[in-house]
């Protein structure tokens, strides 16, 4: 985090803030150990209400429904990073085979 170039955000910028909702100690006991050993965290987007802020600052935002929240500034207008993935040869060949089978069936051939 500290190696990232410092970016400034200004009032009205769309930003994302981070909050630790519960520390590991505050989490309930009856959850798997790997879950209990890490904090319970949240990320929320909204428009910056502070005049100017740096990544890592505690800031206030106004969310898309007009609520005001505080959190640690983590990013300015983060990218939606989910994607279409790679074409899956295992599936594409399955589709082609099924098509051929129907064609063969229609031509009256035995499978």
């Amino acid at each position: 985090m500290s190696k990232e170039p410092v970016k400034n955000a200004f009032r009205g910028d769309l930003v994302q803030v981070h909050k630790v909702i519960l520390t590991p100690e505050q989490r309930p006991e009856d959850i798997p150990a790997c879950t209990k050993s890490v904090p319970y965290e949240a990320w929320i987007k909204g428009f910056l209400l502070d005049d100017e802020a740096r990544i890592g600052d505690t800031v206030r935002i106004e969310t898309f429904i007009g609520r005001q929240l505080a959190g640690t500034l983590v990013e300015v207008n983060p990218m939606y990073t989910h994607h279409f993935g790679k074409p899956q040869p295992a599936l594409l060949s399955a589709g082609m085979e099924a098509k051929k089978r129907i064609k063969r069936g229609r031509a009256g051939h035995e499978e």
Partner: protein
Amino acid sequence: MKNDVSYPSVMSRKNETLRRSVGIDYQEFEISPIAFDYEGLMNCCGYSLPDVQKIQTETGVGNTPLVELKNITELVRSISAPGKGGCIFIKDEKACPSGSFKDRRASLSVYHAARLGYKGVVAATSGNYGAAVASQAAKYGLKAIILQEVYDSHKVGQPEILEKTRACEAYGAEVWQLTVGPELFYIMLRILEETGFFSTSLYIPTSVLGIETLGYELAQQVMEREGRFPDMVVIAHAGGGNVTGTARGLQKAGSRKTMVVGASVDLRGLHMASDYDFNRKSFTTAHSGFGMPFLTWPDRTDVPRNVARGLRYLDRYVLVSQGEVFYATELLAKLEGLERGPAGNTSLAAAIPLAQELDRDQLLVVQETEYTAAGKLPSSQLTFAEENGVEVRRGDPKDNVPGRVIVIPERVEQIRVEDFDLDEIRRSYVRRTIETTGVPQPKEEDILFMAEDSRSSVEFIRKTLSSLDIETPA
């Protein structure tokens, strides 16, 4: 709000917070710690089926096409025994405003919230339901807050859920992207306290009533087209609402002999609250991690009494593997020209072997599809699986290991369903009911309720109780 927001404190105010946020006094319907007035609770908001249809039509929800899957049916018949291979139809729920049947659930609840004067709605969901609530809230001018379990502790997000974040934000919701954990319920309660908004829980009466139109519509569409009701309807099963609402709608249409089959993706062995297991799943809904616990203990939810009670309606419950669902998704695109989201095709995968059991003149309806987009399609979900150390290969799906190997079938014949013994589930239901309520000796009314709630008989419940060494009234 000056309330103490520590975990124990918020949880201790749970009942009060929920009562305020759903506008229902559940106490009114309680008969005993075990029994409650199910139909009374179901009808407490005063909406009839025609009311629901009218409300849904106003926001463009429902009236989705029923499509005959002619090529898939032909493929199934080519591998069926002589005279076998039922005709497969699919209800294209993708045509709902936000792209899934969840609009039906959200539409009535959000309408109801607006009618009661709430300023906003809150839903804790990582699935299509969030987008549905956000979309309906936009139509009624309400504010929406959607809480999603998205990331593991390394901030690696499930692609399918990241897409839901995007969709919810596109509809104008405030989205909380959270890490793995059951504390989703805690943060929901906290936000309900802070805002005074309505909880659009998946398990309140309006949410399930909203799905009745789906069962009703599909029965009518099949009747109009074929002059008879469907013989079998296959329904993706997670929390039980989809099965419950659809089956009730079928009954209201008069389609009483239709076999109701629930289908879930097999994710046995993966812990739903595990930070490690979280990203080793390729399905975030309609899987056994929800399906089984909800059947054996429906009241495990965010409301005191869950009206989504699958065991009341299921004739059969089957599991399919992740690879089989991806394969079915590919068939639907390549053979029928319908590119749809994988999770919605859980019931289609199950329909392929199930149709082989039916006679050629019998009719099977796959009851939903869902929209597809970046993040929620086989290419992105399988790419993600491989990135998280899950092996993806062609082979026999019986070699599928949830979280370790996804096997794409080599041939359509290899798609099978694994039947879950419903009597076994019913016995677990009785055991869980006794354990969670702590009732040492159930009364006659409790036995009657459990018989009805598990769709078994008084004799079955008595026998199960006696096998647990629990005395029953003579």
